């Protein structure tokens, strides 16, 4: 009956909106991890970008310009992270955690300085297709940046699996010493991977702000960066499964937020923990099939 279809459509479109920021960022985090960086600062990338996108949208009057600014700001965080951890060899966890604190503090402060206002990118609504039952509205009535995923996911996959750059990234993530012997600039590749990660995580954060919510408030990413890390783990360092993880987390949240309206109550703490529990379970069940980069989280420095 139509009631059920409508409920499904509601949950699905909500799920897509909750998944999209994670998916963008997960593509980036996936690539950074394949290159060997267990990147904690993805939260900072998303949050900085969310702020930057709204601020620039306000300054220029264009939400699209805001989106772009978000991408750049995310990349900037990636640049700083890369410089510190893969140029000056500061422990990458330290850098990540400190950057998270720094960006949280800075954006929380800046948001108090002036009125940021509301800015949102346009909604796309595809004629005919949007009228499909159940899937119509969720898939074909969305803010347009969502559709960037259709290009960026294959692009990320192609970059990692098919391009020369990706081959060198993977070598840097699996066996940096061997890669170095072969003449690959391991730390440069890792920095570049962090730039890409920053740009995509930035897009995710910016999408959250100028795409979905239309405004910025303090700490609005609320730990989504950590969720993205969990998704990559859940996916066993495979892009397809990582994105599936994002979708599971997004849909679980959508379901959680919709269930009360549908007349069910669930323990909220359990549901908030669900993604982390799922990621742990996935690791417990599928460890043998995962593709964890051999040098994940290990700094590279040339020794004889």
């Amino acid at each position: 009956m139509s009631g059920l279809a409508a409920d499904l459509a509601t949950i699905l479109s909500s799920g897509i909106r909750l998944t999209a920021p994670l998916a963008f960022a997960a593509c980036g985090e996936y690539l950074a991890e394949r290159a060997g960086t267990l990147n904690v600062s993805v939260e900072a990338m998303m949050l900085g970008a969310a702020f930057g996108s709204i601020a620039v949208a306000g300054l220029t009057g264009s939400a699209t310009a805001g989106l772009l600014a978000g991408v750049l700001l995310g990349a900037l965080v990636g640049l700083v992270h890369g410089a510190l951890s893969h140029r000056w060899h500061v422990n990458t966890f330290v850098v990540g955690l400190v950057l998270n604190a720094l960006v949280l503090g800075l954006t929380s402060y800046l948001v108090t300085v002036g009125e940021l206002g509301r800015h949102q990118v346009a909604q796309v609504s595809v004629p005919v297709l949007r009228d499909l039952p159940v899937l119509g509205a969720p898939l074909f009535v969305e803010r347009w940046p969502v559709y960037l995923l259709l290009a960026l996911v294959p692009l990320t996959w192609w970059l990692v699996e098919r391009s020369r750059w990706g081959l060198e990234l993977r070598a840097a993530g699996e066996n940096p010493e061997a890669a170095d012997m072969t003449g690959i600039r391991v730390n440069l590749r890792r920095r570049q991977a962090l730039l890409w990660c920053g740009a995509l995580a930035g897009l995710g954060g910016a999408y959250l702000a100028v795409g979905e919510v239309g405004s910025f408030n303090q700490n609005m990413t609320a730990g989504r960066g950590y969720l993205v890390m969990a998704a990559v783990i859940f996916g066993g360092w495979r892009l397809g499964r990582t994105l599936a993880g994002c979708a599971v987390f997004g849909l679980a949240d959508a379901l959680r937020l919709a269930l009360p309206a549908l007349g069910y109550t669930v323990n909220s703490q359990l549901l908030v923990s669900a993604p982390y529990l799922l990621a742990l379970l996935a690791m417990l069940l599928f460890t043998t099939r995962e593709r964890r980069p051999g040098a994940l989280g290990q700094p590279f420095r040339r020794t004889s």
Partner: protein
Amino acid sequence: VSNDETASPAPSAAPGGSTGTVLPGEPDVNGDGRVVIGVLSPGDINDNGYYESFVVKAEAFAQAQGWTVIKRGSVPVSEALTAARALCRQSADMVAIGASELKDAIPASEEAVCAKTAWYVPSSANVPQTPKIMLSSDDPKQSMLVAGYAAGLLMQSRNTTKAGFVTGPEADFTKIASTAFLAGIRELIPGATLVTTYTGDFDDSGKAREATQAQLSQGVGTIYPYLGGATDVATALANSARAITLTPGTDRCASTSPAFDVSVLFDPGDYFAAALELYAAGKLEMGITKTWQLGVDPYPTVKLCKGTPEQNARLAAFIADIGRGRIDPAAEVQKLGS
């Protein structure tokens, strides 16, 4: 067996005002020639809402008096005490606490470092009286009951019976607020239902938005965004579905984007401003509790932004009934089995 100190609560100090003391030298209690008001808030003091209003009113009043205001927002609950001590050491003449979440700062009022400091503490929850502090309390059940009643008035006129309540963490006070809100609606529409969604975070706009969306999709005609930083996002969405909206604490009838139909005013800033006026006059007493009565005092209260005269009258009458004690909010809520 239990070690709970507070398991059986001691009766709080005498109500009324007879045991209070006025600190010498008010308002410059510490006698350093200037008046410093220190404000601690557990929330974001730029949230356009509850926490911000507390600070804004204080600041406006203090500036008019030529006083200095030190304000500190987003104080973690577990750092309340430290933060309060720091204020005292910054020679604050008064330490004001934005909300009862920070009640654990109160022990500092007994310490030497805060000896020459007045204390203002709003207490909607669980704060015992001490001789060193002035408590300012209201009963959230009152305002939430009336908020429900006001929503009920508008729902009647629109013929809807489903309301939604979107809030952050699932905690005692959010549960009580939601129940009292429903009780208020039921005063008018006995068959009304309320959907309560806990997003887990007052400030996660993404989730607040989705929760609101889910409720709207289920045909909810009223949305109460009982939120912090995420209030505006949820309200804007509710506006787009033409749902009835209410404010969490402040008067925002003038706001157009987003727009509110009901202003529920339990603005801690209003209570605080009143206390500051007494303080300026050197009449603010420590050791007493001021309880703000709906229907008796100007605050708390509930206001329809675009109410018809008839609706306004019915709301006023309900408020007056509470003020006169003809309606006991606690009992009304009890009916729902809180």
